[in-house]
Structure formats: structure tokens, C-alpha cells
């Protein structure tokens, strides 16, 4: 009796192991027999020593906690898509754990009588069950995915991860030309001329034993050391240095430097004991370096046309996509990409200065604010920037201001051309409010700190994440010192800033259920920026400011510094650092996939693992918000 509801059930369970490996016939047969069980929060689903039920459970909505009797510790949470209560049914024993609805739940009760024969017929299901019982991970997602038992995708990703934190894979020539050890030198030279190649692989019993190159002819034959009738064995370079494929360019470069050679042999298993797949030459490395950051930086610096920079930035995006695919640590990706973005900005500024009739009258600094200031900007977003110039005699102030405003207009226009949208709030150096002399800035900062209304707090929070994009660092340091001194005088400011940091509601009630945006075009999406990233960013800012640490504007580096400064909170801070990186990577991936800023995430497009990963970061957010509430004695939490 197939019906709508069984279809609904099948639709859900087919996404989760072990049901995801069932054929649709078994899946439907199973779905038609399911019980849909509703459990109120805190109600017991089964208790310790209770007789087995006739079915095990899959969480459809809500969360279930599993508790051990002896320790009364919650040993696991089951979340949407997790199964529990299966092992006792297979082992034919009473329940050893207590299962309780951690939240209001809808469970699917899956009858064991129907499931058992299906499981027996399907090897993969059996394997899944054996592994999950053996590893004692009821829920392979919990505990940092220690189990990783069923999902091949995960394992693949792990092995794919590059050992060296760098970079693209080197491409090598797969058209192998080889000769045997007994080939004469003359014959070998003929082959190389005919095939127009610079190196020849020497094999013995199909295994690579040596390489001869033009250099060997030069050094060992023409010098008269060996006659051309001798075998290649006498002049070849041996043993060959072998590597497996998936070698990165950096690895290749290092291998060549280390052994002072110019050719590597790629073999099937990476050792000289398996057949060769190809040869990687120094030349190949140079070619691969074409879209390498260093090369891009050079190209950017060489150009005097803003349009050209725009084109180069496209390659930056290609690079970024590649890095993410290779799962390179985000900290490193962000460094490289920010470095490239910085170079672009610097070049735009250089070009803009050249457009002015006269050089700048006094020293100045161009500040990157917000995400760019924090070096967390991987995708194109708005420009947030400001300009500060040296103090000048009062009578010179108007014309100096005019000069820098004009320069700023050139720069913001240039930045817009290369892909930075104008800031909708006009928080840009081309705005007279954001293009000030050092003294004017100091006055403004003092005002914000001593009169912290909501607007001032917002301004400060954007402004305090500044970093130097171009120009005179001492101007920036001067401003930082001023901020710290003023904050010391008005400690209440930190409370306001902390309060501001708590305005973004934490992303989850407890542990799960995303807060989904209620209305607007982003209905059913999760606002990653304001719900998850912003609380972390805001908290890091207020904490680092309270320690008067300057010149660290990047959020995860701030947390790393905080972990150093407060060893007792080390664990939390490191968790926050990790969470920030994880969320940012997430956002970048989403943005690249959807061609937008990645801010809004469609929940139904996430895989189970992605959801779990996201949710794990929420714990850190919740805890850091609690810490701030306590430390800064913020009383008015969440209006």
C-alpha cells in the first residue's frame, strides 16, 4: 500500500546511511512499514534495561540524547538523519543506554523484522552495520567524525589533502620516451633529436633506472670521457629520483633543489620499483608556475592600466577555487589571496597617484576596514576604506583635504573597476567624513569612544578592524595608541562594544536547528555572515581591544593571540579561531558555487556533514558570547 506518507518517509531516509545504499524497491518496502513517533522534549524513548522495541529509530526532526547509566554522561547526540537503538536489536539484548528526546522530536521507527532481511541481502548495509558496531560509533558524525566509516567521500578528501600546505599539482609530461641500459649513446642521441626531447628515460625490466639529458652528452661524451659507442648506462644519471603523481609544484621544486637535478620520474607508486608514468622537468615546473601567486603579483605590479588588473584578478579567482578544491588550510589561502588583493589595491593607488597633477603634499595612509582590514575577504565584497594624512598647519588643511579627496575618488573608482562594489553606506575615503587628518581622526575616535551610542559602536566596530593597505604605518600606529589610551579612560566603552557584539543572536538554540531567516528573498536560507561570522568577529574585536593588542586585525589570529594571553580560556579561543576559519571557508565555497558573496546559505543544499560542521562551530559561538556577557557584565542581552 504505497501512499503519500510512505513516499515522504522514503524521500527522507534515502539520504542517510545505511538507507542511502538501498535500492528503491527495498527502500519503499521499508518506508511503508515505518512508524512515525512524536516525542515531547525530555520524554524517554527507551530506558536502560528496557526490553527491545520491535523497531529502531531514525531521527527525522529534533535531537535525541543517549545517556550511559554508569556515568550518567550524555555520550552522544543523535540529530536529523542519525539512527539509534539498532544494536540491541541485532545483539538481541536489552537497551544499555537511555534515549531521551533532547528536543521535541519526530522519529521514524523502522521495524527490525523488515530491515533485517534487507540488511542481510545487501553487503554494503552489513558492512556499514559491522563497522558502526565495531567502532562503537553509533553516530559517525559525532566526536569529530572519528569514525568516518561509511562515507567514502570523506575518506577521499582526507587522502587528497596535500601534505605540504602548498599548492597546485605539478603537471608532467606523460609521453614517455625510453631506451634500455644497453642502448648506445649514439642511438640515444638520435632518438632524442628525432623526438625533439631534452631527456631520455633509461629502463631495465620496465623499471626506471636512469635518465640521460643533453647535459650528460655535454659533460661526459663531448669531453671525451665516454665514446659514442658506449652504452647509455655509462653516462646516465642514476638512481632516478621518483615521486608519485599528485606531486605539488613546491614539492617538485624542493626535490629538484635538494638533489640538484632537473628531472623527476613519476612512477605508479612513487618508488623506483614500479613502472614510470612520466617525467617532470624543471621546464614543466616553470610552465606550471604561470598561474602561481608570485607570477601574478609580478604581473600586477608591472601594469599601469587598471583594466589589466581586473583581468589578472580573474586568475586570482581561479587560483582560489583550486586551493579550496585541494583543501588547503584556510589560513594559508586567506594569506595568499589577501596578499594578492593587497597588491591589486596598492597598484590601483600607485596608478591613481600618477593621475594626480602633483605628488601627495604630505604623508598619508590608506586604511582597509572591515573584512578587508581583517584579511578575511576572499570573495569580492564592498569596499570599506578610509584615508588619514599627516597633520598640516590649519591654513593648509582645506586644500590638503581637497587633494586627498580627489585622490580618494580616483582610487575608489579604480577599485570599483577591478571588482570592489562601492560601499552602500558610503564608508569610503572618497567621503569627506572618512578622509581626515590625523588630528581630525583622533577627535572622531575620542568622540566615538566617549559617547558610545549604537551608531558609534557600529562605526567603531567597522573601523577598529583597520589595517594598512598603503602608505605610512606610523600614522596608523598613532591612531591605535590613541584608541587604547582613550579606551582606558572610558572603560565603559568596552561594555558597549561587548553589548554590540551580543546583538547578533547566536545561531542556534542549543546545538542544532538553524535559525532560518524568516522573510525576504532569503527565506529558508541561513545568514552565515550575521548569524555565525559576525558574533565571532565582534567578540574577537572587543576582547583584543580589552588587551590593548594592536596590529592584529585578523579574527582567527586575534583568537590565537587571545589563547596565548589567557591560557585558562585557551581551548575556547582556539575553538573560536577554528570556527572562524571553518565558517569563512564555508562562505567562500558557497559564494564560488553560487556566484555571490556566499552570505546566504540554502539549507537544503547542504550535505549532512556540512550541516554538522556548521553546527559544531555554533557551540563555540555560544560559549564566546557567554564569556563576553560575563566579563563585560553586559546586562541588556538581546533586546
Amino acid at each position, binding site marked *: *500500500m504505497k501512499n503519500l*506518507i510512505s513516499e515522504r518517509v522514503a524521500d527522507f531516509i534515502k539520504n542517510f546511511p545505511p538507507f542511502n545504499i538501498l535500492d528503491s524497491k527495498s527502500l519503499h518496502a521499508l518506508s511503508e512499514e515505518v512508524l*512515525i*513517533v*512524536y516525542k*515531547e522534549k525530555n520524554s524517554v524513548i527507551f530506558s536502560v534495561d528496557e526490553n527491545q522495541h520491535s523497531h529502531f529509530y531514525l531521527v527525522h526532526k529534533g535531537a535525541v540524547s543517549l545517556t550511559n547509566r554508569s556515568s550518567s554522561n550524555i555520550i552522544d547526540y543523535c540529530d536529523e538523519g542519525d539512527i539509534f537503538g539498532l544494536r540491541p536489536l541485532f545483539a538481541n539484548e536489552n537497551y544499555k543506554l537511555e534515549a531521551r528526546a533532547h528536543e*521535541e522530536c519526530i522519529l521514524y521507527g523502522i521495524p527490525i523484522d523488515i530491515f533485517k532481511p534487507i540488511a542481510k541481502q545487501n553487503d554494503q548495509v552489513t558492512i556499514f552495520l559491522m563497522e558502526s558496531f565495531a567502532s562503537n560509533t553509533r553516530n559517525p558524525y559525532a566526536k569529530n567524525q572519528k569514525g568516518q566509516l561509511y562515507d567514502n567521500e570523506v575518506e577521499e578528501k582526507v587522502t587528497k589533502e596535500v601534505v605540504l600546505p602548498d599548492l597546485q599539482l605539478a603537471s608532467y609530461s606523460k609521453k614517455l620516451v625510453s631506451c634500455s641500459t644497453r642502448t648506445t649513446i649514439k642511438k640515444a642521441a638520435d632518438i632524442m633529436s628525432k623526438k625533439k626531447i631534452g631527456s631520455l628515460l633509461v629502463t631495465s625490466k620496465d623499471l626506471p633506472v636512469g635518465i640521460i639529458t643533453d647535459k650528460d652528452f655535454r659533460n661526459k661524451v663531448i669531453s671525451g670521457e665516454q665514446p659514442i659507442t658506449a652504452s647509455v648506462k655509462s653516462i646516465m644519471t642514476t638512481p632516478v629520483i621518483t615521486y608519485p603523481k599528485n606531486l605539488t609544484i613546491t614539492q617538485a621544486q624542493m626535490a629538484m633543489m635538494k638533489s640538484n637535478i632537473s628531472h623527476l620520474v613519476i612512477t605508479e607508486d612513487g618508488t623506483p620499483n614500479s613502472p614510470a608514468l612520466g617525467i617532470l622537468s624543471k621546464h614543466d615546473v616553470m610552465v606550471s608556475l604561470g598561474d602561481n601567486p608570485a607570477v601574478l603579483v609580478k604581473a600586477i605590479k608591472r601594469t599601469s592600466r587598471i583594466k589589466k588588473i581586473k583581468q589578472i584578478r580573474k586568475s586570482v579567482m581561479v587560483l582560489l577555487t583550486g586551493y579550496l578544491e585541494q583543501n588547503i588550510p584556510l589560513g594559508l589561502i586567506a594569506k595568499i589571496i589577501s596578499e594578492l588583493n593587497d597588491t591589486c589595491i596598492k597598484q590601483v593607488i600607485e596608478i591613481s597617484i600618477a593621475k594626480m597633477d602633483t605628488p601627495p603634499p604630505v604623508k598619508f595612509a590608506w586604511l582597509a576596514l572591515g573584512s578587508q582590514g581583517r584579511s578575511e575577504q576572499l570573495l569580492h565584497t564592498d569596499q570599506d576604506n578610509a584615508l588619514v594624512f599627516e597633520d598640516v598647519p590649519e591654513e593648509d588643511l582645506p586644500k590638503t583635504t581637497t587633494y586627498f579627496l580627489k585622490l580618494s575618488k580616483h582610487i575608489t573608482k579604480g577599485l570599483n573597476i577591478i571588482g570592489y562594489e562601492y560601499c552602500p553606506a558610503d564608508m569610503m575615503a572618497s567621503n569627506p567624513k572618512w578622509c581626515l587628518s590625523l588630528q581630525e581622526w583622533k577627535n572622531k575616535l575620542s568622540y566615538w569612544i566617549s559617547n558610545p551610542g549604537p551608531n558609534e559602536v557600529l562605526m567603531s566596530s567597522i573601523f577598529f578592524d583597520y589595517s594598512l593597505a598603503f602608505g605610512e604605518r606610523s600614522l596608523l600606529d598613532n591612531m591605535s595608541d590613541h584608541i587604547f589610551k582613550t579606551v582606558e579612560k572610558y572603560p565603559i566603552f568596552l561594555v558597549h562594544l561587548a553589548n554590540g557584539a551580543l546583538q547578533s543572536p547566536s545561531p542556534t538554540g542549543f546545538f542544532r536547528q538553524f535559525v532560518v531567516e524568516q522573510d525576504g528573498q532569503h527565506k529558508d536560507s541561513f545568514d552565515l555572515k550575521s548569524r555565525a561570522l559576525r558574533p565571532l568577529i565582534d567578540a574577537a574585536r572587543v576582547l583584543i581591544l580589552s588587551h590593548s593588542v594592536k596590529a592584529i586585525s585578523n579574527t582567527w589570529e586575534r583568537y590565537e593571540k587571545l589563547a596565548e594571553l589567557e591560557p585558562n580560556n585557551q581551548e575556547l579561543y582556539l575553538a573560536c579561531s577554528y570556527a572562524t576559519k571553518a565558517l569563512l571557508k564555508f562562505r567562500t565555497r558557497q559564494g564560488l558555487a553560487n556566484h555571490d558573496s556566499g552570505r546566504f546559505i540554502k539549507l537544503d543544499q547542504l550535505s549532512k556533514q556540512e550541516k554538522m560542521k556548521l553546527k559544531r562551530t555554533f557551540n563555540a559561538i555560544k560559549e564566546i558570547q557567554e564569556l563576553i556577557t560575563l566579563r563585560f557584565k553586559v546586562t541588556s542581552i538581546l533586546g
Partner: protein
Amino acid sequence: MGLFKRTPKILPDYWKTYENLFKDAKSKNFNELTFVVLDTETTGFSFEDDRILSIGAVKIKNETISVQEVFEIYLKQEKFNKDTVHVHGLLKNGNRKCISEILALEQFLDYVGNAIIVAHHAGFDIGMLNRALERHGLPKLKNTVLDTGIIYKKTLIKSYLLQPKSNYTLDELAEKFSISRKDRHTALGDAYITAIAFLKIISRLKEKKNFSLKYLLR
């Protein structure tokens, strides 16, 4: 009273079986009660002129719905109102297996038994069913009826900040309780959504100290 009572007709056996179920008193324990949550799709909103197109229902016992035990039937139509096709998507000559109205009623009575009927804006569904019974010379349904539209409002009373609306649609309930609106506007799909909403409403009301079936009916 007896004066106005209709002369008893000869009622079919299945009706007698149905009627006999009501002789035993119901359990006082709320968790032991059986609920049938139903929804009907109709050709329109007139009790006089419109007809039932399909009935979908699920049974709840001890907070559990068995997928095997759901009820879903489609009725043969003499009358067809093209204006409501876009709502329920049921065509006059669709591919569904359709049964006669009288057979549908017989099967429904067999399914529902003496369970407590739950429906969203129950008055309409019950009204349509009773008219259908009447057309075939049968008495009205004898079941206790709960309306999720009404009992939902009981969950809201404490909140003096929000003025409860006089009427909540099933869509609003689905949204409030984050129930997926998949299969909305099929009788069984709506019955399922109503069932989940019902369970959630009950769990919220259970905390009240005077909670009972009576309290829900009040």
C-alpha cells in the same frame, strides 16, 4: 423529544458495528486514546451543492502514526467544479482509482471507529461528511471532534503581547511548527500536517494542570 425523532430506518450492518463501538466508555488516560486526523478535498465550500473528492486520514495512538495504517480514498464524481481544480489538483477523470460515495463512507466508518476525530477547521470536513451520510439515509457521525484551529489558540493564551487571530490557516500552523508543506492540498498530505501540528499542540498544552480531553473540547 421522541415526538420529533425520525422513524428508525433500517440501518446497514456496518453502521451498527460503528454505532456499537461507542457503547464502551473511553479511557481516561489521554495517551491511550486513538485519534483519527482527517482532511477532505471537496469540489467547493457549499454543503448543499458540493461533494467530497477525497478523504485522507492518519491514526495516532500513543503519539505514534503507523505509515501502514493511513487512509486515502478518492470518490467518483457526478458533480465537478472546475473552479477548485487548481486547489486540489484532482481531475474529474484523473488516473486515481475512484470508488462510490457510499462505499467511501462505509470504508471511512470502518477506519475511524470510535476514535476522536481531529481536523483543521473540523466543522467543514465533518459537515461535508454528515451531508454525505444524510444523502444515503444514514445518521450523523458520533465521534468526538477536535479542531486544531481552535485548540491551537489555547497554546497562545498566555502571550498577552500578541493578540491571537480569530482564525489560523493550516499553512500558518505548518509555518509556526516548521512542518514541511510537502504534499499540501492533498487530503492525506494535509491530514499528515494536521496530525503533526496536533501532536505539537498537545505537547504544549499538556503542561497545563487542568489538561484533559474535556479541556480541549471546551
